[in-house]
Each structure stands twice: as C-alpha cells, then as structure tokens.
C-alpha cells in the first residue's frame, strides 16, 4: 500500500466510516465524541495533577535550589526530615489541631443537627440552618483576620466577656500551649456548618418506620439516640470525620495569618513548613519530601473514605 493511496483512503474513508448511516456508524460517532469530550479534562488532569504527583516523588530525591543544577541524593531528604525539629513540631501541631478540630466540629455539628431536626416551625429551622451555614461561605483568610482580633488578649471581645464571668485574661494566641487549641476552635467555628448539613441531610433520610418501630419498642429520649439514631447516622459520621481529617491535615491559612506559626514554633503546621522550605528557601527537593509526607497521610485517609463509600453504596 503506497502512502498516497492510504491517505486518500483515510481522507474520504474516515469521514465515510464515521458518518455511515448505520448502527455501527452511530456507535463510532459516539465513541469519537466521547474521546473528544474527555480530552480537555484528561489532558488537564495529566498535566496539572497526575503527572506532578510523580514528579513530586522524583523531586523528593534531589537536592535542588534553582541556582545549582539538581543533585540526586536518594533518600537523604527523608533522613533529614526525620531529624528536622521544625518538621517534627509541625507534624505534632498538625495532628493536635486535626484531633481537636475534627472532634469538636463533628460532635457539635451532630448535636445541632439533632436539635434542628426536632424543630417543626419552618422559619426557626431556616434561621438556624442559615446561621450555622454562614461561616462556611467565608474565606479562611477573612475568618483568621477578624478572629485574630476577637481572640486578642487585652482588647478582644471574647476575653472581655470571660473576665465579666470572673476569669483571667486568657492569652489565646500568644501562649504556646493554647495557640493550637484556639486555632482549632476558630476552624471548627467555620466548618461546623459543613458537618451540620451532612448530619441534617442524613437525619431527613432516616426512615420514619425505623424510628417509629424504636418508639414501639420503648426506646426513648437519649437511649433511642444512642442505640437507634447514631448507629443509623454512622455513614454520615464517618464521612464527616474523614473529610474533616483530610481538610485539617492541610491547615495553613489560619495559623499563617493569625500567628505566622508563633509564638516560636507553637502553631507552625506541616504545610507551613513545606511552604517555607519550597517557596521561601527555594529548596524544591526537600520541600517535595515534606509534601510527600502530607500526601501519604491524606492518601491513607482517602483510601479509608473510598472504602467506606463503596461499602455504603453496597448496602443501599
């Protein structure tokens, strides 16, 4: 087959092959359209998400500070990481923050959803739903800015009211033991709306029959809550917990804006340490090694989530 002949065939042929007025032709057109429609997304995901993950793994084995050519160092960056005080402190702060923030936003969100679910007056439900949802719309940056003032030791409204109750002025953001707790409170304040909505959605999907059956069995009040409602809500509780953990492990905006990681290193998070190494000191290799640690922690949580999600679909 000469090349001229094959292009001629391809020119007329492909068009004919594609536009054939048969079921086969239709199937071909739909397949080609499918690939065309996917192209921008697949290409974009390959260039900006999937590819870069592999590059990050590669970079984590190099020493590279842009001025000098990259230098392969194997696992040296990871050895350095294990002895890096700031990384260890950052990891500790991140874990502490994650536990505090997620526990409080899940438990309070659950209580609020259970309470709103009992309210029958429409306008009251609407008021509470809007109120709890509102902070979720705001940026971490703006919340960090005004909460920074509200939690101010001398002039903050929070301490003013606490001193009226006879408490001393609490150094919320300036004491190393308190700062991560304060940031977790502030973050939970913002994310409460998310867990609240997830639980409210779960509650309204609960079958009334099951709840009525529990009533007949004599399960009342708190006992019904513990033995019937909470087990039925477990998919939502797990979802809110895992999503919360994934978000909290990436905490950056609030501590960066409110305390710049201080006092000392008391509110420096893992992502902050990564940011500083990669984009302040321009150490792409070492920065990538820290990024890989963040990634692996989130990956574990995501796999847990995927697994739970699949099981949940299975039950339905």
């Amino acid at each position, binding site marked *: 087959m000469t090349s001229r002949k094959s292009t001629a065939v391809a020119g007329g042929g492909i068009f004919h092959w594609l536009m054939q007025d048969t079921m086969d032709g239709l*199937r071909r057109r*739909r397949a080609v359209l499918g690939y065309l429609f996917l192209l921008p997304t697949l290409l974009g995901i390959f260039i*900006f998400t999937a590819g870069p993950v592999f590059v990050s793994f590669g970079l984590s084995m190099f020493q590279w500070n842009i001025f000098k050519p990259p230098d392969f160092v194997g696992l040296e960056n990871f050895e350095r990481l294990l002895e890096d005080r700031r990384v260890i402190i950052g990891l500790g702060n991140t874990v502490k923050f994650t536990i505090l923030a997620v526990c409080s936003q899940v438990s309070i969100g659950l209580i609020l959803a259970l309470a709103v679910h009992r309210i029958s007056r429409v306008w009251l439900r609407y008021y509470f739903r809007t109120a*709890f949802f509102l902070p979720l719309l705001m940026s971490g*940056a703006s919340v960090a800015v005004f909460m920074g003032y509200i939690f101010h030791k001398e002039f903050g409204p929070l301490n003013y009211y606490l001193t009226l109750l006879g408490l001393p002025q609490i150094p919320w953001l300036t004491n190393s033991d308190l700062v991560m707790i304060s940031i977790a409170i502030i973050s939970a304040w913002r994310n409460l709306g998310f867990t609240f909505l997830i639980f409210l959605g779960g509650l309204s999907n609960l079958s009334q029959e099951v709840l009525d059956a529990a009533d007949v069995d004599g399960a009342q009040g708190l006992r019904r809550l513990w033995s019937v409602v909470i087990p039925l809500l477990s998919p939502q509780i797990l979802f809110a917990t895992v999503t919360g953990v994934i978000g909290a492990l*990436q905490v950056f905006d609030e501590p960066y804006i409110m305390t710049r990681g201080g006092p000392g290193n008391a509110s420096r998070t893992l992502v902050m340490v990564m940011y500083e190494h990669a984009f302040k000191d321009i150490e792409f290799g070492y920065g990538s090694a820290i990024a890989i640690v963040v990634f692996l922690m989130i990956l574990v949580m*995501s796999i847990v989530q995927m697994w739970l999600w699949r099981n949940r679909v299975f039950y339905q």
Partner: protein
Amino acid sequence: MASNATRIPGDVSAAEHRRQVISHQLGRWIPLIILGVMSVVILAPIMWTISTSLRAGVDSFTVPPKWLPTDLAVENYAQVFEKVPFARQILNSTIITWGTVLGQLITAALAGYAFARLEFRGRDTLFWVVLATMMIPIQATVIPVFILIRNLGLFDTVWSLILPATPTAFGTFLLRQYYLTIPIELEESALIDGANQWQLFNRVYLPLVKPGLAVLAILSFNFHWNEFFRPLIFLQHENYPITIGIFQLQGYMMTGSISVVLAGVVVSLVPVIIIFLIGQRYLIEGIMRGAIKG
C-alpha cells in the same frame, strides 16, 4: 383491699404521666436553648465584625465591645482602597474566579457527559483514574506545577491559577451524576426526530443538567474566591487577589485602626453573600451531595 389494689396503679400512672410531661417539655426546650446559644456564638463574631467596621478609628478596638454601629464611619471603607490596591485586587479575584468557574463548567460538562452517556473503550478505567485524582491534595502537586508555570512564562499571571484549576475531577463526577438521572427515552425520541450527536448533547442534555451546572458554579466560585494558598505562591504584588489584600491590610494596620481592616473583610464577603442569596438551594444541595472540594 380492692380499693387499695385500684388506687396504687392509679398513683403510679399519675406519677408516670407527670414524668412524661416533664420529659416532653425538657425534650422541647433543651434543643431550643442549645440552638439559641449556638446561633449567638456563631453569629456574634460576624455581627461584631460588621459593626466594628463602621466604628470611628479611635475607639475601634476598645472594651467593652460595642455592638451597634452607631458611628456609621463609612470613611473606613474608602480608606481600604487607599491603604492597599483594593480595587485592583477585587478585579484580580473576579477574573481568576470567573475564569476558573467558566473553565470548569465547560470541561466538566463535556467530560461528565462522555462518562455518563457515551460508550467507548476504556471508559470505566478512565473514570476510575479521574476519580482517583480527587484524592491528591494540592501540596502534592504544587511544586512541579510551580516549576511548569514558571517555564511556561505564566508566573504572576491570572493563568497560573486558572489553568491548573480548570480540569476538575470533582466537577466531572458531579455532572456525571446529573446526566445519569435523565431518562434515556428522551435521547431516543430526539434521535428519531433526526438530532445529531452534538445536538443531542447541546439541545437535549445540557439544558436538563442546568441545576448540576449551578451547583458546580456556586461551589467553585465560593472555593476559588476564598483561595489563599495558591495565590500566595503563584502571584505577586499588584496581581494579588482580595484574600491576600486583607492579609496585607492586617499587616499594615497592626497598630492603627482595625475598623479599616474589618471594612476590607466585609467587602470581601459581599460577592459570597450575594451568591448565597441567589443560589443557597444549589449550595446546600452540593454540600449535601458530599462535596466541598474545589
């Protein structure tokens, strides 16, 4: 004997009845009290921010806190625009956010349709690959993307934020769900009427997934308008968006009037509140569908 036998159960049931009434009343009032207190805890910081943004500079940060905006110091809002290039930053945020939203709507509308309604080899494998990329956090890609953006000469341009955020696994997944809810009979009748494949997508399916597009647009707008981490890395000086503008304001005004900073915060909330008022149904639906990822 007989009267005793009848009286005792009667007493028990009266006590039981009273107990039930009390627990019923408690069951009604305790949730209301919890909700009332919590709604104050949630709303008070926002109210304080708004009222303090309207307070004259000298007593902006005093105790006891004042809750009513009695000064109506509107000049604080004018000052925001003098202290930092706020108008420019609002424009930057607007371009970046709408650019990203538009890009996501187009690419996800196409990809979601392909995954939901077209048949081709490797479709399910590709779908799982796309879904799996949702697990990848921004930190795991940001350094290579930064190097790439620099090499493409896009550093410190709006494209450095728009382009990497345009392909959206989450949006594709979300819209696929919407396409799947549309009855296939509609497609068959359109084909009998002589519609071609593009018309089928454009005239039959696309109008029917408008609610899904609205959910994606609103979630994406909210997420990208509020972004802080990526702009901090990819942009500089006059190209900063409003989130970094507020951060700069806070830095400049450390010792000055916090009213001006809070005025900036309030301005940054306006578009988000407008979007909320227009599309809260979609927003809440989107979140209920289990998503807050950009």
